[in-house]
């Protein structure tokens, strides 16, 4: 396994209020090249998991092992290697790019920080190359994020993460803030990248439908606990837990017949 999350617990305290436990013994693992979906509603602890995965927060107990290294204890050179090999794409395409940096600076920052390309000219080449890969025009690298649409910003964010050649990409609701018509652009891009680069993806979402098209296996979270986990087919075709079933049943379907029928059935039940 590339990444193993083993029974992590985490709580937030805001004295004088009693501490609130947000994660209870959460465990899952990720194989190289695998796409894993973490699905949960608000309050399910999925953002906290992302923070722990990215070593931005440390779990109180349990461990997160990446390639043999304990993520929450990693320091110095070890942490730097982790930072190069595990990257992240954030939810809000408007807030996740520093507004005062050009696209070239934004995408090239990882190359600079990890000293992957010593010269500015080589860095520019690499930036142009990755921009083409994610479907951006390299001529736009001198521009600033504010002149791009939401979908394009998410492409910039993906390019920024991928340029240093990570092995895992953690995506925290990367399409939740996008319009429906462009959501699919980003999901398709992630899928292409996963296949082309052999990338492992942790895809965090509140929407099961989005996850279905990208992830091989799925972990369903509810109030900080893993409710159900398994391969895609199991979760979607044969959900065992009532919570998973309820989640599936609530996803809207773009078909008036099905939608109406579902609503009427529920009226009969209640």
């Amino acid at each position, binding site marked *: 396994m590339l990444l193993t999350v083993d029974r992590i617990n985490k709580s937030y305290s805001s004295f004088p209020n009693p501490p609130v436990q947000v994660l209870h013994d959460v465990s899952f693992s990720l194989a190289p090249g695998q796409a894993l979906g973490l699905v949960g509603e608000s309050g399910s602890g999925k953002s906290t998991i992302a923070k722990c995965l*990215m070593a*931005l927060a440390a779990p109180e107990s349990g461990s997160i092992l990446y390639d043999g290294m304990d993520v929450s204890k990693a320091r110095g050179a070890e942490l730097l290697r982790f930072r190069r090999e595990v990257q*992240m794409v954030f939810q809000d395409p408007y807030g996740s790019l*520093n507004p005062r940096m050009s696209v070239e600076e934004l995408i090239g920052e990882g190359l600079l920080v*990890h000293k992957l390309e010593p010269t500015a000219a080589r860095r520019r080449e690499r930036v142009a190359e990755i921009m083409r890969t*994610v479907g951006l025009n390299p001529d736009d690298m001198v521009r600033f994020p504010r002149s791009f649409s939401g979908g394009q910003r998410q492409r910039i964010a993906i390019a920024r993460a991928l340029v240093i050649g990570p092995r895992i990409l953690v995506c925290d609701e990367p399409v939740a803030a996008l319009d429906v018509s462009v959501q699919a652009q980003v999901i398709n891009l992630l899928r292409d990248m996963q296949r082309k680069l052999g990338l492992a993806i942790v895809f965090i979402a509140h929407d099961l439908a989005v996850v279905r098209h990208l992830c091989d296996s799925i972990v369903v979270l509810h109030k900080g606990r893993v409710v159900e986990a398994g391969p895609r087919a199991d979760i979607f075709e044969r959900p065992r837990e009532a919570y998973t079933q309820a989640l599936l049943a609530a996803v809207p379907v773009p078909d008036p017949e099905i939608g109406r029928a579902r609503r009427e059935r529920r009226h009969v039940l209640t």
Partner: protein
Amino acid sequence: MTTVSAMSGAPRRRRLALSPFDTAVIVLVCVLLLAAVFGPFFAPDSIYTSDIANSLMPPSAANWFGTDDQGRDVFWRLVAGARTTLLSSFLVVTLYSLIGVTIATVAAAGPRWLDEALMRLTDIGLALPSMIVALGFAAAMGPSLKSAIIAMAITGWPTTARLLRGIMRQTMESQFVAGAQVLGVSRWRLMTKHVLPNSLDVLIVKWAGDIGNTVLVLASLSFIGVGAQPPSPEWGATIAGARGYVSTAWWTVVMPGAAVAITSIAFGLLGDIIQVRRDPSLGGN
């Protein structure tokens, strides 16, 4: 894969044209700055000597703002005093801004306990009326312009520190800062490249207003007698010296006071202009 060019998206923010009023304010500020820089070179030497025969003369073609009790030309003394007043105010604001920025940055970047300690220190500074504390310091160090400047510099920083630290904390909550951390940037690069540039512009707005305010406080301290001492042409000290002549020679009091007021107002308005340009909704219309 298709290549998408950045065609749409948010428009560049439109530049607001300067209104005649705004232009007037900026010209006024420039005139004041010019007076402060070059004024003393043009001022006649007579403003430093006393000429009792010519004392308390009303405004005339020879003495535009009249003369004071020592027969010195009020207008040229004000021009000469502009340097003292403005230079001191710039010095004070620069000094306490440096202190404020340092404290805010350390608090925002540092561990929780340090942040807490520095912010409590700032709370103390904010709770105490700065003019009174400055008065105490200046009085203790022995009344002089230098004492007043030092006293104002060590009492002025808390508002800057509090404001900036709040904004920096807010900036640090934003996703692009988390993004930079995830990328593995150093603490130093995080603060200087990501957090500070996105937090500092609020200080630019504050700066002009602070200058205006400092001009006022400096004049006040000098008036009480803990700032510049007569015969310095500093405006507050000039008013203090001329206090007794309000009824007999109004110009000796009104003119230097007007100079303080105009300078303070001009910088205050400059601050307003900058602020409205950043957030047009504050200006109305």
